[in-house]
């Protein structure tokens, strides 16, 4: 059985969802009430692979909302309690979605394996980052040529390059071969370490990297204050919005700048769940975060282990493995709308 731990994108939206799911009392509660409320297993689903294999899964809402991010203890407890519920529900492999994995990593919750009476078994959880990184790389490889960008000569900026997903994307693109990797991140030292381990790549500030880049892969959360001077960007420019939350399209909208939601996959058939309705997916019955899909893939493949775990452990082999599974079981990476691409003749079948 696979599990997904998710949350609403805002308190307002969470209340609406609570009402629609039959949790009227929660819908009426204030933020303090939500802070104390335990996680909820809100939905069970059955998913059929293109191969015919059928698995069962459950969606757990951590009853966390982003408004709680500044309440560190609350945020931490929400994540750990949701994981505890997943484990107690007998779920073999659970993906940490949205802020769940960000909180887990940034607050170093690995130290906290004991939640009340339950000792968390890390083997049962995955960040889903390997699949996310693989999907983002697919999105670069599939969509850049459609815009007439030749990756072998293109400059690809990775914003958040030293992070877990960012560093994996860099390694993948290095193996594939791109014109030049532009490495961008907030903290200098991890970037220098990454550059050393890659043996290539140029370290740049965001402001300097953007005007040079043919492709920009965003895998960092964007500062609210971020302004993108779209006039200075190359045209065409492919932007993969792989951060969380996904809010790049409002900042980088301009002719010739193509923003694609990164790390999103589409399943080969409708799943029949309610939960993705709220994740602002264009096709909520089929589309989902790649990290969630990783839990399904691991369950389809019978790999019940923490496939993606810790920071900067994602190998190319692991990406190849999860990528092959992704295709086999019927997932497809989200692509630019073919109607928007200037070279329709290049669109793959």
């Amino acid at each position: 059985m696979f599990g997904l731990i998710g949350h609403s994108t805002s308190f307002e939206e969470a209340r609406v969802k609570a009402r629609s799911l039959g949790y009227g009392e929660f819908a009426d509660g204030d933020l303090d009430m939500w802070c104390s409320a335990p996680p909820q297993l809100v939905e069970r689903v059955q998913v059929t692979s293109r191969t015919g294999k059928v698995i069962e899964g459950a969606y757990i809402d951590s009853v966390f909302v982003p408004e709680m991010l500044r309440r560190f203890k609350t945020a931490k407890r929400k994540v750990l309690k949701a994981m505890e519920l997943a484990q107690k529900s007998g779920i073999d492999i659970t993906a940490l979605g949205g802020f769940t994995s960000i909180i887990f990593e940034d607050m170093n919750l690995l130290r906290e394996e004991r939640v009340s009476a339950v000792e968390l078994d890390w083997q049962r959880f995955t960040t889903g980052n390997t699949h996310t990184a693989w999907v983002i790389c697919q999105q670069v490889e599939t969509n850049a040529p459609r815009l007439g960008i030749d990756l072998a000569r293109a400059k690809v900026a990775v914003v958040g390059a030293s992070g877990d997903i960012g560093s994996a994307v860099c390694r993948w693109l290095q193996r594939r071969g791109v014109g030049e990797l532009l490495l961008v991140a907030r903290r200098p030292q991890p970037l220098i370490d990454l550059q050393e381990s890659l043996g290539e790549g140029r370290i740049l500030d965001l402001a300097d990297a953007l005007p040079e880049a043919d492709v920009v892969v965003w895998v960092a959360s964007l500062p609210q204050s971020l302004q993108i001077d779209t006039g200075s960007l190359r045209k065409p420019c492919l932007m993969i919005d792989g951060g969380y939350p996904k809010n790049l399209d409002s900042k980088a909208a301009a002719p010739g700048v193509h923003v694609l939601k990164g790390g999103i996959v589409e399943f080969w058939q409708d799943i029949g769940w309610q939960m993705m309705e709220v994740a602002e997916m264009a096709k909520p019955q089929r589309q989902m975060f790649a990290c969630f899909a990783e839990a399904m893939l691991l369950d389809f493949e019978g790999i019940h282990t923490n496939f993606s775990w810790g920071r900067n452990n994602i190998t190319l082999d692991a990406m190849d493995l999860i990528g092959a599974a992704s295709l086999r079981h019927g997932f497809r990476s989200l692509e630019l709308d073919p109607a928007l691409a200037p070279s329709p003749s290049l669109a793959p079948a």
Partner: protein
Amino acid sequence: MATLTSTPEALEAGTPSGAELPDFSSETYKDAYSRINAIVIEGEQEAHDNYVAIGTLLPDQAEELAKLARMELKHMKGFTACANNLGVTADMPFAKEFFSPLHGNFQKALAEGKVTTCLLIQAILIEAFAISAYHIYIPVADPFARKITEGVVKDEYTHLNYGQEWLKANLDHVREELEQANRENLPLVRKMLEQVASDAAVLHMDQEDLMADFLSSYQEALMDIGFTGREIARMAAAALVG
């Protein structure tokens, strides 16, 4: 609505370190401890009395219940030793007053022979609350109390389990009474918690943590008894809303 995008920095900046221990020898600590400790002692005493009383309603279980009751007395002695260790005198009149609404509801149910209500109050609500409170307390307890409390928690799980099993086996007949008892008693637990929030804070126990942990344990117990997630959310809301 949300200030979503400035958060990773905030997270990094605010990454908390391990729980900080309070100064066990300060007068402020001892003063707060005198009430919290008294509540615990009184709670264990009431638990003893309540299990013995439930035994009168369930004669075939009286022996098992007497065993649970004896454990509670042992806990009480342990917690009394904790107070002595810190040189604190437990404020028992405060604790008696603190428990009186719940005590009153239990006695009323007992007089009416309502075993379901009695079990909900003692074996589910009080036990779930105790387990959560002890869990929150353990990381910030003095070394002596820590050891004692760790031992107690293990026992309390078996008590919670006892109530769960009985209610589960009888859910079909007791559902309505259980919901009614929940409505009448869960808000009391919340009020009790609010009453001691400031004392608990002196002991470095956070009110929200206490409430959240309690609700998790309570939810889990109700789940085990056979309620659905939505039913439980509705029941738990009695503690959270209003």
